[in-house]
């Protein structure tokens, strides 16, 4: 990858947006913060002393920038304005049917019920396809810790969601 911002974005966008969402930002603000992180990282890349190919070091650095920007945003309530960063067109919900929509609502509600540490890794891991290594790097955790949190979160979610799924299947 070696310092190409488009590669950075492809690799780290999902977990970074997931991290911002887990910190309580709404969708637009989370996208804005993630975009800020990449802009800041690109312009400050000379300050990074590790190897760009070392996911652990680079992820930790990006995570640090994200935390700083989030904190600065909380303090000043002003990110550098990214005026029309409606980064996202609203993706079409794959669930066209009411049933699928209800299922998604149930899943999102269940995610919100998770303890914060588990909610964080679930959002970062599942928002886009990524690896536990990257999640671990951004959070400054070990891969084993992230896998443990993911496993516990899945068990909880499966326990909460299975009865509703069974009921829907019975109907």
């Amino acid at each position, binding site marked *: *990858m070696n310092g190409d911002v*488009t*590669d950075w*974005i492809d*690799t780290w*966008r*999902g977990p970074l*947006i997931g991290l911002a*969402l887990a910190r309580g930002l709404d*969708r637009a603000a989370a*996208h804005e913060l*993630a975009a800020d992180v*990449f*802009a*800041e990282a*690109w*312009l400050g890349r*000379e300050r*990074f*002393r*590790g*190897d760009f*190919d*070392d*996911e652990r*070091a680079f992820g930790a650095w990006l995570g*640090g920038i994200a*935390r*700083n920007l989030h904190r*600065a945003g909380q303090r000043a309530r002003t990110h*550098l304005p*990214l005026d029309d*960063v409606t*980064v*996202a*067109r609203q*993706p079409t*919900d*794959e*669930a066209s049917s009411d049933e*699928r929509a209800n299922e*998604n609502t149930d*899943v999102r509600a269940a*995610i919100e019920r998770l303890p914060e540490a588990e909610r964080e890794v*679930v959002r970062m*891991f*599942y928002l*886009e396809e*990524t*690896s*536990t*290594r990257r999640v671990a790097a951004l959070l*400054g955790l070990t891969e084993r810790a992230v896998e443990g949190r*993911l496993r516990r979160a*899945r068990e909880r*979610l*499966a326990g909460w*969601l*299975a009865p509703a*799924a069974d009921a829907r299947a019975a109907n």
Partner: protein
Amino acid sequence: MSTTPPDVPLPDLPLPDLPERLRRAMAAERADPEHFALAVERGIARRRAHEEAQRRTVRERLGRAPAALRAAAGWLPPTALPFALKGMLGSKGLAWKSVPALAALPAISLLMLALTFAGALRTLFAREGQAARPHDSQQRFESTRAWWLRNRWPALGALGLLLLLAYLEHSEAAVALLLLSMLALVGLLGELARAGIADRRAVGTTAGLVLYNLGLYWFLLRRFVPADGLSAEFAPLVLWFAGLGAIVVGRGWTRRDLWRWLLDPIPMRHPDPVTTACLRAFSFGAVLLGTLVLAVFAAVTLYSLRPVDRSPERTTAWLEAFDAPHTDTRAWTRFETILASLPPGTEGGLELAAARRAATQEGPLAGPALVVAARRNWIGPEDIAGAERLERSPERARPSDEAALFALLGAGRLDAAARRAAASALVETPGFFHATTPRAVANARRGARLVDALGHPELFDARREELLEQLEAQLPSLCLSLDWYPPIRSRTEPFDEALRAIDMLILVERLSLADRLDLAPLERATRGRGEAHVAASNLLRRLDGSPRGGWVAGLVRHRVFLGALLLGALALLAVARAPRELEGGS
């Protein structure tokens, strides 16, 4: 960059397709890749414009700043200025406008040298897989090199001055110079921030690093400087914590950031740009010479920091092993003084066979060896010229008859009347109680012992107040490192502050003055590694518990600690008052 495939369905859970359900549920929160990339590009462009505006503003503000501040900007370390201000910095002679910067130069030079070393160490101790990219730090290299090229000779002069002061027994002057220098630097940083030229990060980083270095310097020098325990032990901690605080506040770090910084300094495999920039500013010969000087400095410092046995047993062992020839007056002076420093009543239990052999070797005995030999009854009155005359006319005793009087006492040849007559004659000798120079203090100490041995301590006690005043007047000579001053340094006998401290402490103990004199300044004399230092340290410990005088004396005693507190507080204030971020427009 490698990728790991996302997880697979979990058949052992009641909901095997859970991962798929999670992805579906979160699809609405994903970003559109194209729009997101566009947003990042716009963010980059906006930040560049913002930075350019800041740079313009700083240049304009520097152009409008007072001349003294402009002059100072050329001396300040690159960490203090947010941008490389090429063409705007430079020392233009040593005009009065440069005075504040010149005052800050020792602290700045020490910082630049420490950064060079830190970079070298990080490079040396780098581990595989922690390589920095060679192109990473071009800007740091440029700004550091420019600084060294601009300021190398004045900086080397300042560093040389600090080294000289430290090793020519004026360590306190070196520390005072650094403290003042640091105050000047903090003032300059504050002015720079107020003029909108440096932001909080720059001020915090610079102040923090300099405080840290000052703490390190004081940590190395504290044993050579007259200072109380509070200053010696806690001033470095105050400086280090204040330095850390300045960096944390300056950078707006959280506790997590702080731990990461402390635990993961990321050494570099490639040469550090700051180190390289410093080395390239000098010729190879100059670098080699500088390395040699610093290696000697480091070796001497490490040697002086090795642990010391300060137990009374060490003193006893040394005394029992002493066997210098009796012609070695300096060695015997040391022996006699250290022997006198032992707790009353313990001297008799020593086995001084080696010293006795040395003292009774062939050749005429004289000076301290003669006194010791007479006191210990190794020789009799018949071996001392004038002893018989003194026996007949004790009223003609003089302090120089010390050995003869001890020999007569040891032989039991002085009756009560003779002892009284000798003691009275001694105390009436002009100058007997004039403890007004270090040497006279030693004479007074020996005189006190003699009068006590003659059985008339009351004659000495009668002059207690007079001696107290004289001892008080003597303390500064040991307290303020004035031993180089000719009137204080004896021309005939090398000044030994530890021996003089022992003399003074014995007198203090003898006259029970420990509760009326502030003995803290004497601590300096106990910090060395020699036998006399150890003996002085044990003697001082025996007298501990004395009150510490008034608040002025307290201020003087704790001056380094208070200076460190003041400096730390001012630095933190300067950091906190600096603008969080430089404005984009003027």
